[in-house]
């Protein structure tokens, strides 16, 4: 008998239960294992839930994600030494999208970071949170304290009617614009609310104590505009919105510039660097990235899924990283990595699915327009 590697032992751990596990089951959710948790994949059906979110408001339980709180002396500089976000210029109540990069500039995770009155708050992906914590502990100085807020749930309310529904419970959330955040109170519980999300719609992400999660979810779903929505629709919504999913469209194999996420690095940090992985970013800003993340429109009705190979004639030029049927558009859509020479919008390509070649074209993203509540400039 040979010893099993650690990773296999980790995989054998039973999935964790969300604090709302019973709540999801009572609402008819089909539960599947995802990112080490039993998660609701759907309630009434992915298509109906998807379209409901685009027209009304959907409640998503994303408590599997890692909520991290950072405090301590020299915190801004310490974080800037790791991630490419500008933390020093991050104002109170503002949120930014950022990334964890490895030394070679590969993407370890994508994340949201915001400044709260007493800490810096970060939300990382569920599947990667323990690796992220390990990476951060390794690179943070001793003066900085990091806490995993595992006593907190995270809910997302997304859709054009999210603001109407949430402001009945918490009136002042109306005042937030896209990527702004603030603390509020609901029935004696502290909420941290950001106006952001992962669907392309207006909406909110709400961090709250685990013991308040069920009552709060009930209060939201008691509103006519709100239905609980599963992971299945979360995935189809984010794909239509052109938003990458870590572990699929993003991984250590692709760079920030290749993944078309250069917007996450502000000018000052692009020039001065000083974060892990900067050399690759600087090189690719100057010379371009060899492989690019693109959107793909596909002719016909047959969806191309993750792993399907992309061709230009007989040459393999890329791979589909996410793909499926777009419920809003009624056609297949996909995201993939292609060699830079084939990444221009409109480039005609072919995707191989079960031995058949589907005609595809590099398409601009988002596939469905974003409807963020942006601050007028």
């Amino acid at each position, binding site marked *: 008998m040979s010893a099993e590697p650690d990773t296999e032992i980790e995989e054998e751990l039973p999935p964790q239960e969300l604090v709302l596990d019973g709540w999801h089951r009572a609402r008819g959710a089909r539960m599947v294992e995802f990112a080490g948790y039993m998660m609701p994949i759907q309630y009434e059906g*992915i298509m109906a839930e*998807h379209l409901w979110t685009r027209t009304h408001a959907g409640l998503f339980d994303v408590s599997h994600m890692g909520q991290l709180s950072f405090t301590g002396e020299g915190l801004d500089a310490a974080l800037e030494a790791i991630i490419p976000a500008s933390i020093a210029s991050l104002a109170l109540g503002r949120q930014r999208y950022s990334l964890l990069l490895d030394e070679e500039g590969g993407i370890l995770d994508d994340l949201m970071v915001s400044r709260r009155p007493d800490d810096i708050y970060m939300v990382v992906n569920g599947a990667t949170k323990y690796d992220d914590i390990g990476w951060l502990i390794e690179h943070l100085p001793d003066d900085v304290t990091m806490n995993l807020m595992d006593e907190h749930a995270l809910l997302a309310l997304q859709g054009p009617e999210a603001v109407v529904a949430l402001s009945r419970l918490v009136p002042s959330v109306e005042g937030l614009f896209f990527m702004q955040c603030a603390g509020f109170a609901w029935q004696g519980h502290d909420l941290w609310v950001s106006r952001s999300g992962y669907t392309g719609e207006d909406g909110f992400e709400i961090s709250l104590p685990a013991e308040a999660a069920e009552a709060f979810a009930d209060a939201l779903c008691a509103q006519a505009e709100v239905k609980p929505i599963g992971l*299945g629709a979360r995935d189809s919504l984010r794909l239509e919105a052109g938003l990458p999913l870590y572990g699929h469209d993003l991984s250590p194999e692709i760079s920030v510039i290749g993944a078309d996420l250069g917007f996450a690095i502000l000018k000052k940090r692009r020039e001065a660097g000083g974060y892990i992985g900067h050399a690759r970013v600087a090189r690719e800003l100057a010379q371009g990235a060899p492989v690019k993340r693109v959107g793909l429109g596909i002719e016909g009705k*047959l969806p191309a899924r993750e792993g399907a190979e992309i061709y230009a004639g007989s040459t393999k030029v890329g791979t589909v990283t996410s793909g*499926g*049927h777009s419920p809003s558009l009624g056609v297949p859509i996909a995201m993939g990595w292609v060699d830079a020479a084939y990444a221009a919008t409109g480039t005609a390509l072919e995707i191989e699915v079960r031995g058949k070649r589907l005609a595809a074209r590099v398409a601009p993203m988002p596939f469905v327009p974003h409807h963020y509540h942006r601050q007028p400039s």
Partner: protein
Amino acid sequence: MSRYFTEDHEWVDVEGEIATVGITDYAQEQLGDIVFVELPAEGATFDKGDDAAVVESVKAASDVYAPVSGEVIEANAALEGEPALVNSDAEEDGWFFKLRLTDASELESLMDEAAYAKYVDGL
């Protein structure tokens, strides 16, 4: 006419030497919203257990196996324009294809409706 079922959640209606094949209501419920069905070509021949069709739901692609051996004599053209028929009427209008049986004795290994119902209850 007799109806048979497989452990892979297909139903087979047999009339003479012609078998009509579809997936069960239980299967469509598990798959969720179906957006595309890839059907076999007329004249294709299958051995029992061969990949015969593919059902694409919003979530994923799933194989449909030939429940018995035979030659395809017709595929359900209605599914091309309206794959959701499989959700709304899996066990009638949402049929997939018709086979000319090459070995009717294979039917003996399939379940009848009562046995299938019991099988599904145990899942």
